[in-house]
């Protein structure tokens, strides 16, 4: 069994590094379309990482893992499918509080046009690259520092890389939320942090308890995310007539 598990663990680690790559990519770009595509790819990778990690832990004797796999994998897959449609709807919809999810090809094109107008910097900014590398370094240092020395934990490398990637996603998500100038990318930043949580649940929390309870809390968090995507984001876009957060701030009367 161990011969099979080692390659699987390596695959998980490689996929996590790829996730870091996509996080970097969606941070350094100004194009909302690319941000969304990179996020979808990242969600897909997360689903594979979560599922594979759960299989490895099941093989290691952690009981009750199948239900957890199903619970954990559903949400990222759902977001892969839904996120673009929700963001198109948020960008162009005028009936924000209606539970209508119909998005036409015309809506899609209109949203693409609005997103294209937002892209101001064609080249990646060195500032972003340096910042992300620094954040990743910080996250991995924390992971190395807080985890016990070799021998005390099963799959230490798996756990250490998992914690490092989880913290990096967290910090990079925060970086996106603070520095991106459109509300769509800010929401993607929030979802990126959300992904850090998913990874933390499957990589560092004991299975099945309390991991299952944490998954319930993640579902609850997803409820908040859906509230933002379905109601709040379209409404804010509707009342401000823009997705440009700088313009919203400039025109706002909420000052001082």
């Amino acid at each position: 069994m161990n011969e099979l598990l080692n390659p699987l663990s390596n695959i998980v680690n490689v996929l996590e590094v790829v996730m870091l790559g996509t996080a970097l990519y969606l941070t350094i770009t100004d194009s909302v379309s690319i941000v969304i595509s990179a996020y979808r790819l990242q969600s897909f990778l997360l689903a594979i990482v979560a599922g594979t990690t759960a299989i490895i832990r099941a093989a290691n004797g952690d009981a009750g893992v199948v239900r957890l796999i199903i619970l954990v994998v559903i949400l990222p897959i759902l977001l892969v499918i839904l996120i673009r449609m929700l963001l198109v709807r948020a960008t162009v919809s005028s009936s924000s509080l209606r539970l209508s999810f119909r998005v036409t090809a015309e809506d899609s094109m209109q949203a693409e046009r609005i997103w294209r107008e937002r892209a101001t910097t064609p080249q990646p900014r060195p500032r972003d690259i340096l910042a992300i590398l620094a954040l990743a370094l910080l996250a991995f240092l924390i992971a190395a520092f807080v985890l016990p020395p070799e021998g005390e934990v099963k799959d230490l490398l798996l756990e250490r890389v998992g914690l490092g990637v989880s913290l990096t996603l967290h910090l990079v998500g925060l970086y996106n939320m603070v520095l991106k100038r459109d509300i769509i990318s800010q929401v993607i930043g929030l979802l990126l942090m959300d992904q850090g949580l998913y990874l933390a649940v499957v990589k560092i929390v004991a299975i099945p308890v309390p991991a299952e309870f944490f998954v319930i809390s993640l579902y609850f968090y997803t409820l908040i995310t859906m509230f933002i995507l379905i109601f709040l984001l379209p409404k804010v876009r509707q009342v401000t007539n823009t997705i440009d957060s700088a313009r919203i701030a400039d025109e706002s009367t909420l000052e001082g």
Partner: protein
Amino acid sequence: MVTQPELTTGLVIGIVAIPFVVCALGALSLIFRWRRWEPFERALGYASVVLSGVCLVLSGVLAVNAPAIALKPGINLPLLGDVGSLLLVDSLSIYFILIVNLIAFVASWNSIAYLRDRFPRRERRITVESTEQNDTSRSNRRNPTGFHTLVNLFHFTMVLVPLADNLILLWIAIEATTLVSTVLFAFDNKRESWEAAWKYLIITSTGIIFALLGTMFLANAAKGLAVLREGPIADVLIADPNAIMNWTFLMDHVSLLSKDFVALSFLFIVVGYGTKAGLAPMHTWLPDGHGEAPSPISALLSGVLLKSALYAILRFYTLTNAKLGNADFTSTALLVAGLLSLLVATPFILKSNKFKRVLAYHSLEHMGIITFGIGIGGEIALFGALLHTLNHAVTKSLMFLSFGDVLRRYERIGVAQTDIRGVLRSMPITGGILALGGLALVGTPPFNIFMSELIILWGALSRVLLPVASSKPPPIYASSIPNWVTLGAVALFMISTTLIFYGLVRHLAQVLLHKADYPAADDKATGVEIHRGSERPFHEPVLELAPLLILLTVVILFGVWIWPPLSQLISNGVTIVLTGKG
């Protein structure tokens, strides 16, 4: 004869069930459209007030009969099973439940008047008809039933917070308050309120992710317990697997937790729940949110919601101190956060601003003061900090509600918030209450805030000048912050509060004393014609003043006397925070 656990369980069920039932009734009326039936709408509003009053009485009984040690209410629900195992009732949780219910009661009462002005009956009939024909006027679709439903749901979630023993449930309850309060923020359906709701949800959701990650780190710290297959700990976990994230269980087995993960967890918790508590530098949602929300909601947010997050920090504070064996790490983090909040609030209170925003910055200041008190640590300062939690909740609610009453009346004749002047003349009773509340808020003797601030300062100075052994049973987790740091912190505290005193008095003088200058207009709610320069243009009904007078009584009374069961509750709460037992 009713035993203590039975009494506690019965009271807790009542306190939790009442707001839930009112909310469920409201939700049903929204689904089945009874809300268009005005008698039901009115009845729901009055029921909300009366039943939140019943909740307050029940929590008073709970406070008087507080259990000597932490109790788990025996609550079993169909489908959900033994819910009681996830809950906890001790003096600290009862104290916070009491605060929630007191503020929920007065806010519900004040909501009746707020909604009456927000939806004048005649106009409402017209707008309901018009919304059916014209979908563009969505603001008209807001309804009092929806408001009462959400307020009761908010009340329910806020009661759940101090009752949660399971730290994941605690997180879920706090996150639930976020979701419900966001909708309430935007109730007025203006651009500003949606902007504020957006900012609030994005910032606090970000913070709450940190808090969940912090909770996960704590779960990782307890991983050693989860893998045990034999022995008493394993027996407990086999019987109740979710106990592994219960605060009481973790406190009992704190020596077996991983030290580094507990410390890392606390840092993430301070950032996460600190965002929700409005501590600087994560406070930026606070002035917008409190400034734009309807006044009863601002009172609930400032009076209770911020404290709910603080309650969560307190539980982690105790756990971390117990693991680390001292309070150096936690106290330093909280002292820095507290002082930073005080310093950040000061310039914004000094500058000219909308009065509700000024009050919001005062919340930042007072959360800073409470956090400062916890950071100083020790019995006296912690007593002061816990007492200040109640005092600030009461005084700030009084300010938001009384200014809300003023604002509603001036808005009815088309006067903007920034142009409100001469309230002492136009509304002498509400103006007088606002003046007394304002003086209390800045820490003027003999009001309640003065008392608790003095105790906190006394706690800080006594650490330096009169260090005495604690009266609490060991182990006490105290900090060894150097004296010069404590004195420096006290100096900054004094400078900030003095400047803030000047700032608020200036704002109050502008609102209260300047000559009233409103145009001749028709009062939109009453239809009465208001003449330019009328001496007392607004009626101040006793029923509307009553919740303000209740709060004012507490503000004045607690400056000179504390209800003995409450004092005992706070003292027991201090023991719990210091030792984890009580």
